[in-house]
């Protein structure tokens, strides 16, 4: 009966209820988007970092992976030292460099990673073979589109370019062995992977056996703090970055979005709360007579409160459910805008949908709806019966 009464009350002013539900839906959509933005970006980055199971990165001191051209010398010895540790499962030394695909008079510049194909964590092979042979490489779709190359083609690739003399250095003929999806690259970025030794020879890094970073996978993630301590003392010229450290740096860089999401999320909640409170208050004021008569004929105070709170809750829940759908659509649109952020891996979703985010948004708004109805409900249920009946009769 109470639900029937609540729904009937909402139906009484359809236009008003519809507008309120629409308002709550937009607030819910915004709230969901902001919850997704605050948690999704982090989670998406974490998933990306751990996608190949490497929990630690070793970079030249003071740098982030591929942030500068700084490199680490003596890579083979370091790799062997790391692999000798029983806690370490896999070590992937990586060299990053810009290389040029030569085509007659012109060239196409692309990013290249030099890796050990048996231990790499930078790409997933999509088709063809991996770049296991010294004169082979794999490339991403953007590279294939830009160069019109097909698997099996041989391309002339150079590592250095002197702009004044317009000459290339470190040139090699490499065979395209396969197509790969690179995990950490920005959208539209051309990329290839070459066996580490080959790229070192092409760039001249071979002389000092240089690499840009090491990726390390532990057998037991619980040992990260111990291994980190050991690495810091054994390899003082390097920064040891665990997934948690990387997350902290991302948090710092993207703190603006977290703050924005917190502010806009709070504003959405306040708007939803105000909307429902105003509507329920006005609706209650309009039917003080009815409410007092209900109390007079024996309807308990608790039941009057329940019925009015139900009205607010019904509006909030309907709005929140509608808003969830709307929020997912707007999140896709907003994600498309932010995915063009320069330098960020294309695989990062700023708005990652997690069921928890949806439940949080719906839960918060429902709680708001309940709270919003409580005050007007309590006020209405506490009206002095005799006096209000007299006033209503006069009105």
């Amino acid at each position: 009966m109470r639900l029937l009464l609540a729904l009937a009350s909402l139906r009484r002013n359809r236009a008003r209820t519809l507008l309120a539900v629409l308002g709550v839906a937009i607030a819910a959509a915004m709230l969901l988007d902001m919850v997704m933005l605050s948690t999704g970006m982090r989670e998406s980055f974490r998933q990306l970092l751990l996608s190949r199971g490497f929990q630690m990165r070793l970079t030249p001191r003071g740098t982030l992976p591929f942030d500068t051209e700084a490199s680490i010398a003596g890579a083979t010895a370091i790799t062997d030292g790391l692999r000798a540790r029983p806690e370490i499962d896999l070590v992937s030394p990586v060299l990053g460099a810009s290389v040029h695909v030569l085509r007659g008079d012109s060239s196409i510049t692309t990013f290249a990673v030099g890796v050990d194909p048996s231990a790499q964590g930078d790409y997933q092979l999509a088709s063809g073979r991996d770049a296991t042979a010294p004169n082979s490489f794999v490339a991403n779709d953007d590279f294939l589109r830009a160069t019109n190359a097909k698997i099996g083609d041989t391309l002339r690739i150079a590592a250095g370019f002197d702009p004044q003399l317009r000459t290339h250095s470190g040139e090699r003929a490499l065979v395209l062995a396969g197509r790969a999806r690179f995990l950490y690259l920005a959208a539209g970025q051309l990329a290839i992977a070459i066996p580490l030794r080959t790229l070192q020879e092409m760039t001249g890094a071979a002389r000092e056996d240089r690499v840009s970073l090491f990726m390390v996978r532990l057998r037991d993630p619980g040992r990260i703090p111990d291994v980190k301590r050991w690495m810091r003392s054994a390899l003082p010229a390097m920064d040891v970055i665990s997934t948690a450290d990387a997350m902290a740096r991302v948090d710092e860089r993207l703190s603006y979005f977290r703050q924005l999401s917190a502010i806009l999320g709070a504003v959405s909640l306040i708007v939803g709360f105000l909307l429902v409170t105003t509507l329920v208050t006005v609706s209650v004021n309009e039917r003080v007579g009815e409410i007092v008569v209900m109390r007079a004929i024996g309807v308990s105070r608790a039941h009057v409160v329940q019925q009015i709170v139900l009205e607010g809750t019904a509006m909030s829940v309907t709005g929140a459910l509608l808003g969830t759908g709307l929020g997912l659509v707007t999140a896709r649109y907003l994600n498309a805008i932010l995915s063009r952020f320069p330098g960020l891996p294309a695989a990062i979703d700023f708005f990652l949908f997690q069921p928890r985010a949806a439940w949080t948004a719906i839960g918060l708004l429902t709680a708001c709806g309940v709270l919003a109805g409580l005050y007007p409900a309590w006020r209405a249920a506490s009206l002095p019966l005799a006096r209000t009946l007299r006033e209503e009769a006069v009105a």
Partner: protein
Amino acid sequence: MVALLLALQLRTITIDQRLATDAHLRVGDTAVISATTGTDGDSVTIAAIVGRRADPSEIARSEYRVHLHLDQFQRLIGYGDRVDRFAVSTRGDAAADSAVRAINAAAFGFRAYRSHEIAVETSETFAVVSRFHRAIGVITIVASAVFLLCILLLKVDERRRDVAALRLLGISRRSVMLSVVLEAALVSVIGSGVGVGIGWVTSLAVNWHYQARYQTPLRFALVTGDIVLFAVSLSLVLGIVAGALAARRLVRTHPLVLLGR
């Protein structure tokens, strides 16, 4: 005395405020700089500490900035007599165009660009953020429009007894409607005025916070005349529409029905 003589011979560098704070460096201090860790470097004197420019591309970049004399830097990093780019100042806009054309025609191994072409590229981050803000802005405007419409409808609806009384007194539909619409419009304008005030105070807080956070003189939130005009006009239009819709419904309903008889 020896230290003083040594200092006089040293080359000078400038460092940014963050580095000065973090490394406890002051003007006149001596430091050693090198291209790679663990290698020998040059001793230098800190000649100045510089603040960050109001440059969007520098936002959220946490690395330190050091300025060296060109020849010293080239030697330190083994760059030979090479540079990454030249900055060229011209006399006026037309001169810049002809200079770019002339350089590109004669250049061998490099290209000239207008400054704003470079700026577009380097401020891509901000362009993305700006597009994102615009999208959020549109959603916020739709939400506020619905909110405003709802509140104003309620506000006018609240006047049903007054409207009934006026109608029973013989006041024409037109006059009643006008007065209701006028009231809604007035409420909207006063509300948006208060909103502009809150927005202005908020923008001060936002600028204060982010300028301190990113150590930049950039202004992050601006309340401009255009924005104020847009906000006030939007709420005025919404006020009039909501007022007219609600008032039309009220004046078309029989006064006795409005009174609940």
